[in-house]
C-alpha cells in the first residue's frame, strides 16, 4: 500500500486516539504531580437549623473556601508536589515498616496493597481458568454433531452478552441473604449460609462470575481456530498412534498458541481493571480492586471534596501495572512476529 493511502486510512483513528487516549493520559500524568486546592479562610458563621419545633442557632468558626468576587468561583491554587500523591497512595513508609517488623499482614491494611493483592490474584487465577474452560467448550462444540452446534454455540455465548455490572448484580441478588440460591442451598444443607459475610466466599464468587462471563469469548476464538487445524497433520498423528490427549498436546495446542497468547493479552488487560464485581457485590468492606480505589478517590463526599491528585496517581500506577503484566506475552508475540518475517 502506498504510504499516502495508508496515512489517510489510519489518520481518523490516530486522531481519535490522540484526542481521547493520549491527551487525557498526559493530563492525568501531569495532575498526579500537582495538587489543586481551594484557598481556605476561617470565618465566624452563624447557622440556624430547624429542630422539631424551634430553631437552634450556633455560631462557630468555619473553614470555608474564598470565592473570587469577579468570576464567582472558588479561588484555587495549584502546586507541584512531586511524588507526594504517589507516596500518599503507596504509603511506602508503612510498607517498609511492616516488612521490617516482620508483620507482613500489615501491608494488606494499606488500601493500595490490599487492592493490588486482590487485583493480581484475580487476574492470575482467572486467566488459566478462562483459557481452559474456553478451550474445553470449543473442543466439545467442535466434536458435537452438526445439528446440535448452532444451539450449543448460542447458549454458550449468552453470558458474554450480559452487561458486566448487571451480571454481577444478578449474582449478588441470587446469593445475598435470602436470595433464591442461598435459600435453596440452606434448605438442602440445613444450615445458615452467608456468602457475603467473609472475604473468601466473596472472592470465590467473583472468580466464578468472571470465568463464567469471559469464557465464551475464549471459546469463540478457539472454535474459529479449531476450524483451521491441519487435518493432514491430525490424520498422520492418528496413524502414528497418538491418542486423543497427545493429539491435543502436540498438534492442536501448538496450532492455537498465538490465539492463547492473544486471549491472555486481552484478559490481562481487562482483568487488571476489575471494577464491576466490586460495585455489584458491594464488597468494599472485604475486597477492593485498584480500579475501585481510583473510583473511590474520585467520588465526591457530602462536602464535595474529591482526591483528584491521588486518583491520578492511582490511575497511573494501574497503567504501569498493566504494562508490566503485558511485557511477557507481548515479547513472545514480538518474537513470533519477527520469526515469521524471516
Amino acid at each position, binding site marked *: 500500500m502506498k504510504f499516502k493511502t495508508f496515512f489517510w486510512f489510519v489518520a481518523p483513528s490516530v486522531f481519535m486516539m490522540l484526542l481521547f487516549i493520549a491527551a487525557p493520559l498526559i493530563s492525568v500524568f501531569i495532575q498526579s504531580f500537582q495538587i489543586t486546592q481551594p484557598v481556605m479562610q476561617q470565618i465566624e458563621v452563624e447557622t440556624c437549623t430547624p429542630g422539631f419545633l424551634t430553631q437552634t442557632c450556633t455560631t462557630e*468558626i468555619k473553614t470555608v473556601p474564598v470565592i473570587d468576587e469577579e468570576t464567582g468561583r472558588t479561588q484555587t491554587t495549584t502546586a507541584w508536589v512531586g511524588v507526594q500523591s504517589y507516596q500518599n497512595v503507596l504509603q511506602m513508609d508503612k510498607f517498609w515498616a511492616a516488612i521490617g517488623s516482620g508483620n507482613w499482614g500489615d501491608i494488606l491494611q494499606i488500601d493500595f496493597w490490599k487492592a493490588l493483592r486482590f487485583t493480581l490474584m484475580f487476574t492470575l487465577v482467572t486467566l488459566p481458568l478462562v483459557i481452559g474452560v474456553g478451550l474445553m467448550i470449543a473442543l466439545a462444540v467442535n466434536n458435537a454433531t452438526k445439528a446440535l452446534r448452532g444451539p450449543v454455540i448460542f447458549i454458550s455465548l449468552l453470558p458474554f452478552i450480559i452487561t458486566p455490572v448487571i451480571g454481577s448484580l444478578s449474582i449478588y441478588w441470587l446469593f445475598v441473604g435470602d436470595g433464591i440460591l442461598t435459600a435453596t442451598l440452606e434448605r438442602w444443607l440445613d444450615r445458615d449460609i452467608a456468602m457475603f459475610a467473609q472475604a473468601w466466599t466473596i472472592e470465590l464468587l467473583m472468580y466464578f462470575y468472571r470465568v463464567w462471563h469471559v469464557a465464551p469469548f475464549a471459546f469463540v476464538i478457539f472454535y474459529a481456530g479449531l476450524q483451521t487445524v491441519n487435518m493432514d497433520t491430525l490424520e498422520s498423528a492418528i496413524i502414528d498412534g497418538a491418542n486423543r490427549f497427545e493429539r491435543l498436546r502436540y498438534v492442536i495446542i501448538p496450532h492455537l498458541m498465538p490465539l492463547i497468547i492473544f486471549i491472555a493479552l486481552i484478559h490481562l488487560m481487562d482483568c487488571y481493571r476489575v471494577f464491576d464485581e466490586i460495585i455489584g457485590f458491594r464488597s468494599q468492606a472485604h475486597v477492593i480492586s485498584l480500579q475501585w480505589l481510583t473510583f473511590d478517590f474520585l467520588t465526591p463526599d457530602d462536602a464535595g471534596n474529591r482526591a483528584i491528585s491521588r486518583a491520578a496517581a492511582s490511575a497511573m500506577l494501574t497503567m504501569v501495572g498493566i504494562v508490566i503484566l503485558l511485557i511477557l506475552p507481548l515479547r513472545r508475540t514480538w518474537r513470533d512476529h519477527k520469526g515469521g518475517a524471516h
Partner: protein
Amino acid sequence: MYLKKLALAGAVSLLGTTAFAACSYENEVPLKSLTAGFEAWKAVTDAMAECGNFQAELDQEFRTKQPAAFEANPSLYHIGGVSNGTVTPLLNAGTIRPLDDLVAKYGQNLSPNQLIRVDGKIMAVAMMVNTQHLMYRSDILADLGIDTPTTWDEVFAAADKIKEAGVVDHAIGATMKSGWNLAQEFVNMYPGFGGAFFNDDNTAAVNSDAGMKALAAMKKTLDYTDPEVLVSDSTYVQQQFQQGKIAMANLWASRAGAMNDENESQVVGKVTMAAAPMAMDGGAPATTLWWDGIVIAANITDEEADAAFRLAMEGLDADMVIANNEAAIWLVNGYQPGPLAEGAIATATANPAPPAYPSTTQMGLLHTALGNELPAFLTGDRDAAATLAAVEEAYTTSAKEAGVLQ
C-alpha cells in the same frame, strides 16, 4: 422513576389547563429539579409537577452530581433538594442564592423554623427533619415482656432475649454497608459517648476514649445482626423489617412509613418508633439530626428563580402535606404528627438533644475516612486503637490535599 415522572408530567400537560386543579396557577417557565429519591421527595416533586412545565430528577446519588451541576452557568437545575450534609459544597461554592426576597414574596405560609439562615441570609427552606431512631417490633417485645429500650445496653439485653426466643432471624438490623452508611453509624454513636470530632485547629479528634467506646458498641451490635451486615444499607434494613426478619434497628425516620405499606410489608402496625437509644446514661440519644429542604441555584435568571421558588412553595404547601402526612416528619404547616413520628420527635426534643450533623468541609472528609477504615475493624482485621489511628491518618492526608490542614 424518572421516566415515570416524565410520562406523568407529559400526560398531565396533555390534559390542558383544566388538569391543574390541584395547583393554584399554571407554571410558564420550564424548570428542573435534582433531589434525593425517597418518599417525601416524590410527594413534593409530584405536587410541583401538577403546575406543569416541570421535570423532576429523583436520584439517591444526587450528592455526587449536584455540586458540578449547580456550578455550571447556566445551572443544569433550578431547584435542588439538599440536607444539612449535602448543602455544604453548594454553600461553599456560592452556587445557591439567598432567598430573603423570594421568601418575602411567596413564603407567607412558611414558619420561621423552616428558614435555614447562614449569617442572617436565608439560604435554604427546610421541609422535613430526619434522624436515625429506634424502630422495634412492639408485638415481639411485648410477648417477651421487654420494656422499650432507652439505652444501647438495654437494646443489647433485649436482643439477648429475642435471640434466645428465636422469634426472628436476627435480633438487630443495622445500616452498616461499608462506606457512607457505616461511617454514619459511627457519627451517630460517637457524640452519644460525648466525643468531639475535631480539635480547634481542624485536626481530627476521634482517636479518643469516646471513639474506643463507640467502636466497641458497634462491634457488639454485630453479635445480633445478619452476618452480611457490611453490605446492608437503609433499603435492605427496611426490607428486613418488612419481611419480619429483624426485631429492632436504629433506622431513618424517613423509612417509617414503609413499615405500614400494605403492598410491601408483612408487619403492618407492628413496628413502633421510639427515641434513638442513648449510648451512656444521661447522655444525648446516639444519633444526629438532619433536615431536608430546597435550595435555588444562583446561576439562573431572576425570572427563573422567581418561578422556581413559587413552584417549590406550591410543592411544599399544606395540601401536599395533608395528602402525604405519613411520608416524613414534615416541618410544613398542616402536618399532624402521627404515631410514626413519635420516635423522631422524642429524639429531637430529648434533653440533652443530639447534635445536628455538622455541615462542614472537614466532616465530609472525616466521613469518607471513617467509611473506608472502619470495615477492617469490624471484619476483625485490625484492632480498635489501630483503626482510629488509621482514620485520623486518612483524614489528615485528605485534609491536607483539600487545603483544610496545612
